[in-house]
């Protein structure tokens, strides 16, 4: 709430101050005051119309980001460590989860840079720093998006044809290689300034691709990156999860029909519970879809508004928030995909007793097949 108030107040204030001929004190400066002329390219004129945010903004963000850094490191390092060292977890499907964790870690690498930048209230390393920061962000951001789509595809294959559909490790490796190819064009082109470029944004302490320059090239670039890194992965996710739900519904229907043919009155799980299988899967699928929206819609909106819409609404605070969303989701990722993985929890419990996870051991020769005994191993 406080953030939002600030958003609305700081925008107009900037303009009022300007129009009234109000002379800012030393503490109230315009954004970009500390950028020397030789680096003035890094600051788009748009930002110079806003007041520099107070120190508390920088320090507040730095604090939030350091918490995210800690969470992301613990979560993702655990995932990489356990998934790659435990033999029973080294399956093709889990390669995608490890790949996602690697992208998340790359995103977390940005955070130390950001924290230092926040304290000096400018991008450290100027152009080079900006490029490094933006490359990390672009590789990890687009990588996460497309890896989410790959996970959706893998799950769709596994669930729709449970007997022979699942990807083998070679296919999985090919798909992971494709995710890396996927991130290259929109990372390398702006880095070499062939098409688009990386520049500072918001409080001028973060860097991303330029969506404010008012020329055709930039506008087309923004449109392309929007489709490439947002629309296409989102379409894949929606398509595969809806197909997955469809095949689950088919399986359930087929089974009910067979039970009917056998004159079986009571399925162990009665009709309500059968429904809930579909419902539960739908919930998981929707959570993943929703997290994707949460992570990338703010960024996409800001970029599209910057290129095509009314820029006046793009205050520094409003442009800082999307990055925060994206990074928060990359911290949640390992928890969604891995912590809910029952075998992973077992392994984690074995190795890190201090975490206090109490995952019941699955007993293989028990009749764990009963539908009614479904555990909460969602996602």
């Amino acid at each position: 709430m406080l953030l939002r108030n600030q958003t609305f107040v700081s925008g107009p204030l900037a303009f009022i101050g300007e129009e009234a001929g109000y002379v800012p004190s030393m503490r109230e400066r315009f954004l970009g005051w500390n950028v020397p002329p030789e680096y003035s390219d890094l600051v788009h004129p748009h930002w110079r119309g806003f007041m520099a945010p107070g120190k508390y903004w920088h320090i507040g963000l730095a604090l939030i980001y350091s918490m995210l850094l800690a969470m992301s490191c613990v979560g993702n390092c655990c995932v990489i460590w356990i998934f790659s060292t435990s033999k029973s977890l080294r399956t093709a499907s889990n390669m995608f989860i490890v790949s996602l964790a690697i992208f998340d870690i790359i995103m977390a690498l940005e955070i130390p840079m950001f924290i230092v930048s926040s304290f000096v209230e400018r991008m450290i390393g100027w152009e080079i720093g900006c490029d490094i920061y933006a490359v990390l962000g672009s590789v990890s951001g687009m990588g996460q998006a497309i890896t989410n789509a790959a996970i959706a595809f893998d799950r769709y294959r596994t669930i729709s044809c449970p007997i022979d559909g699942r990807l083998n490790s070679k296919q999985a490796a090919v798909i992971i290689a494709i995710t890396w190819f996927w991130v290259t064009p929109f990372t390398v082109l702006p880095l070499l300034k062939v098409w688009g470029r990386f520049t500072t944004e918001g409080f001028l302490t973060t860097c991303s691709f330029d969506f404010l320059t008012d020329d055709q090239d930039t506008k087309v670039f923004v449109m392309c990156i929007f489709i490439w890194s947002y629309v296409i992965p989102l379409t894949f996710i929606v398509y595969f999860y809806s197909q997955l739900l469809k095949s689950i519904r088919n399986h359930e229907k087929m089974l009910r029909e067979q039970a009917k043919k056998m004159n079986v009155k009571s399925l162990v799980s009665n009709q309500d519970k059968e429904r809930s299988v579909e419902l539960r899967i739908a919930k998981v699928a929707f959570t993943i879809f929703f997290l994707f929206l949460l992570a990338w819609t703010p960024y996409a909106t800001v970029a599209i508004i910057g290129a095509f819409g009314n820029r006046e609404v793009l205050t520094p605070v409003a442009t800082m928030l999307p990055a925060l969303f994206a990074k928060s989701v990359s911290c949640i990722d390992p928890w969604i995909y891995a912590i809910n993985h029952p075998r992973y929890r077992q392994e984690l419990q074995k190795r890190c007793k201090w975490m206090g996870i109490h995952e019941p051991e699955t007993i293989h020769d028990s009749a764990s097949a009963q539908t009614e005994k479904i555990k909460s191993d969602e996602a």
Partner: protein
Amino acid sequence: MFPLLFLAFVVAIKVFKKTTPNGKVTVYLGKRDFIDHLDSIDPIDGIIVVENDYLQGRKVYGQVTTTFRYGREEDEVMGVKFSKELVLCREQIVPIKKEKQDMTPVQERLLKRLGANAYPFLFQFPQSSPSSVTLQPGDDDQGKPLGVEYTVRIYVGEHEEDKGHKRSSVALAIKKLQYAPPTRGRKLPSSLVSKGFTFSQGKLNLEVTLDREIYYHGEKVAANVIVTNNSRKAVKNIKLFVVQHCEVTMVNTQFSRHVASLETREGCPITPGASFTKQFYLVPLASSNKDRRGIALDGHLKDDDVNLASSTLVADGKTPSDAMGIVISYSIRVKLNCGTLGGELVTDVPFKLMHPAPGAVEKEKATLKKNKSIERARYENSCYSNDDDDNIVFEDFARLRLNEPE
């Protein structure tokens, strides 16, 4: 003296027993394999013995469930379960609900022997219930194998929905199987195909005929292959496979596995104008397919006598598409290789692979030893009606089964 004893031993009925972990309730089953005769299925008949004063107002229930497992446990993501359990029937056994109950001879004998605390139970398989099939897991597979299984579960509870306690319940894995009809038909399956080639005249003809329609497990499958080459290409080699087709109706998928194969260059190249005739023999066996993922078997892996899954038979008036669970069929596939440019000529000849019906083998081979035939016939109702009570051999059910109760 000795032959008499021997005979008495053979005639003795073997009964499988299993006791609950707390030792209070014991289940006796006359057999573990129940045969689907298409027009009827063997009922599941057994006896329960409850210890004196154990129940104290509680009741003993029995239920038969079938479990379809159509995906590996470790692939279960997002909370999906690749297995479904259907309760086929559930009944109260103690106290007896019905006044007078029809009993099978085994039950009558056991009841006489086990005394006052014994209670009979009888479950029927529903018509058109699928046969037991296990898909062999691969090396890296953990968890339960895929397939169709049946379990008889006996538990003590206050009422029917009461799931009962682990200590007072017992589960017995049973199999439902199909046997070949008593006579193997005289029809000889055969297939005739030909192949033309682009840019050249003439055809390559292939005729494959099997010497039987139904084979018993372990028998040689003889395929008579006749190649007549009227084309201008030469046949480089001949390949034969026994293909096991497996249709998983629960998820509407099917797949095939080669369970026996043979490659030969005998008579090759079969040059233009030449012809070739030869009988080839293949033996499809479970033992030659160990550790291959997805091979369908008739029973559990730990059984010594495991064999390839039998072909699924459907009752008259039903189509194979009405069959449920995992539907198995077999064919001989013959491939003629005409080189890289010529391509291949392939044909499939279907056949059935089954267990002989009890007595069928004896009819065919009168030379078979007598004790075997008695053993085969021991389930026929009449043979032990006037036997001495002591001829019951109890065997622990659990010893051969991997399914422990919960």
